[in-house]
């Protein structure tokens, strides 16, 4: 019973959804302020979601109906699992199991896979184009991200358990404190932007090129679920990064503020990157991730092995 509650309410679906909407609001508000606009009210992400739920669901003719409708749910489940495991590890570091880091890394890919599935199932050329771009982007950012994670594993003495990674950092200082850690965080932040498909890596959607790409055929509740997945990813990716590189969170006294600050700084970073750069082309993105970013990642791993 407790496990169900954990996945559905706290720290699973409901909590992540609420936090994700808050993060989405912060992102939109900051963006608006950067652009000399006023920005939406606090509950706007919720209104958007509820409004979409009330709209008609249109399934395009000739599409694979079940895949088309199940893809959003798959993405939502993926992000819920990641969020639950990461938050559980941060709140109760003794829990979890050895290797849950690997499970988290796998489930982190699920939302992107769901988008690809749904887009290909919708039988639309623009969506297929978007899906193929999403696939290339995934291939591009996965390698450097794993290299960055490898740095954490090496530094903490080969642990594959999320809880242990955090307790290690809380007793020996966060990963960010070392040279290899700084490089790993740079790599991780860049790949985070790609995993969230935000500018400069919003290539699969690219509303100005392929009209929303992967989501072009989605409407009503399925679109709402995709949007919710996006919002939840917006808080889950910073959570993963906080846990892996910034020493996780601690709910004692002023540590609470410090923990919140970590999230906020990561969110701020995401928003600033997305507001100060134009979209790149998919070939440029792949070249960027497999070139300089991967090199930085390898250097970080080597430095970590040497003990820096």
């Amino acid at each position: 019973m407790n496990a169900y509650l954990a996945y559905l309410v706290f720290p699973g679906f409901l909590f992540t959804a609420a936090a994700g909407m808050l993060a989405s609001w912060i992102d939109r508000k900051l963006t608006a302020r950067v652009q000399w606009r006023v920005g939406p009210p606090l509950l706007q992400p919720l209104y958007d979601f509820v409004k979409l739920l009330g709209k008609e669901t249109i399934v395009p003719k000739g599409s694979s109906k079940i895949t088309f409708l199940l893809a959003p749910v798959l993405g939502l489940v993926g992000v819920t699992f990641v969020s639950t495991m990461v938050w559980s590890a941060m709140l109760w570091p003794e829990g979890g199991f050895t290797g849950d880091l690997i499970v988290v890394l796998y489930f982190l890919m699920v939302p992107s896979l769901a988008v690809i599935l749904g887009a290909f199932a919708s039988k639309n050329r623009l969506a297929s184009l978007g899906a193929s771009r999403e696939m290339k982007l995934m291939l591009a950012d996965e390698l450097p991200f794993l290299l960055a994670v490898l740095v954490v594993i090496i530094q903490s003495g080969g642990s594959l358990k999320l809880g242990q990674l955090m307790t290690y950092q809380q007793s020996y200082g966060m990963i960010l404190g070392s040279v290899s850690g700084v490089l790993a965080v740079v790599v991780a932040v860049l790949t985070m932007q790609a995993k969230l498909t935000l500018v400069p890596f919003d290539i699969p959607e690219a509303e100005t090129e392929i009209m929303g790409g992967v989501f072009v055929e989605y409407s009503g509740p399925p679109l709402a679920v995709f949007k919710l997945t996006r919002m939840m990813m917006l808080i889950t990716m910073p959570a993963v990064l906080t846990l892996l590189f910034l020493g996780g969170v601690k709910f004692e006294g002023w540590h609470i503020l410090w923990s919140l600050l970590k999230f906020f700084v990561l969110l701020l970073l995401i928003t600033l990157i997305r507001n100060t750069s134009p979209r790149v082309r998919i070939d440029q993105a792949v070249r960027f991730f497999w070139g300089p970013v991967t090199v930085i990642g390898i250097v970080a791993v080597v430095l970590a092995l040497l003990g820096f």
Partner: protein
Amino acid sequence: MSEIIPIGPYHPLQEEPEFFRLHVEGEIVKKLEIEIGYNHRGIEKLAESKSWDQVVFLVERICGICSTSHPAASICAMEDLGGIEAPERAQYIRTVICELERVHSHMLWLGLAGHFIGYNTVWMWVWKYREIVCDLLDKITGNRQSYAMFKCGGVRRDILDEDMLWIRQSLNKLKPALDLFKGAVMDDPVIHARTKGVGVLTRQQAIDYCVVGPTARPSGVAIDVRKDNPYFAYDWIDWDIVVLEEGDVFSKTAVRILEMYESIKIIEQCLDKMKPGVIDLHVKELPAGEGVGRAEAPRGEVFHYCMSDGSNFPMRYKVRAPSYTNIFSNEAACVGQTVADAALVLAAVDPCYCCTERSITVRNDRGEENILTGGDLIRLSHERTKQIRKELGV
């Protein structure tokens, strides 16, 4: 095997009716088909039923963005027809309005270009500073858009001496903003990566497609009506044409940014040189004959032709807007680009579809003109409705 990616018939970004068929292989565009003519408004025919004064208002409605270039060309045509020389002060005021409009139009495009490559911050910032220009136009003409300032033989409103200081201050506020955008756009490495070498229109292609204005000048073709056939006060003022050689999207952007500096230079000189005097000759009648007017719109050369039999109305009125030639240059510039770049290249000519609409006569195989009348359309619609009813069984 090439697939077709449709952009249109209602462009999701530029929000105007036109249709681009991109024939793609993977992400590479192999061929581009352009269809326009979705929103024909019959302006030329309408002009034949308006008096000369009303025609100026009518052509102002051809385009919402370059709403003063059409009246400019129109009054040039009328003054050519009547052999009228407008007073000096009116010429300076006209020049100021034309150049302010160029600045506002280029800023509008720059913002949209930022939006097109996903750089929404540039979009919002440019449009924020564009407000200065709109306020200036509001102060001088009374309108932010569609200024209704020009008339045959003069202008409708004077630039007041007490506004002069405020106008100069506003222009000075605009300069640092332009420097900001010049830095943000022309020195950004990612923008370089996205726009340099993309959508190149060579000099020869530019000549072959007869492109004009800021689509031709980046390709090394130095054409500008303001220099080639000076009208208004452009001849009395010291300014330069901005010409670049590369012909890619980056140089198209650069030309527009640099032209804004030239425009401000022109406006300031006009304000300096302006002497008190009459602003309107109160022309009452135009003789029979023909007149031709050319003006440099923010997008290139606008051409107006009018023919009069001495009555109150034009007998024939003809308009050619710059986008009409510029849009088709995309056929050359888009080929070999990726879909991502094609969207950018299509936007880089600063297309204005509402200016370019033409009616088309379709000829069938036997060479007969196939024109559908109103009655035919109603009959077709009835037949189609019956057919659909039958299919649905209602």
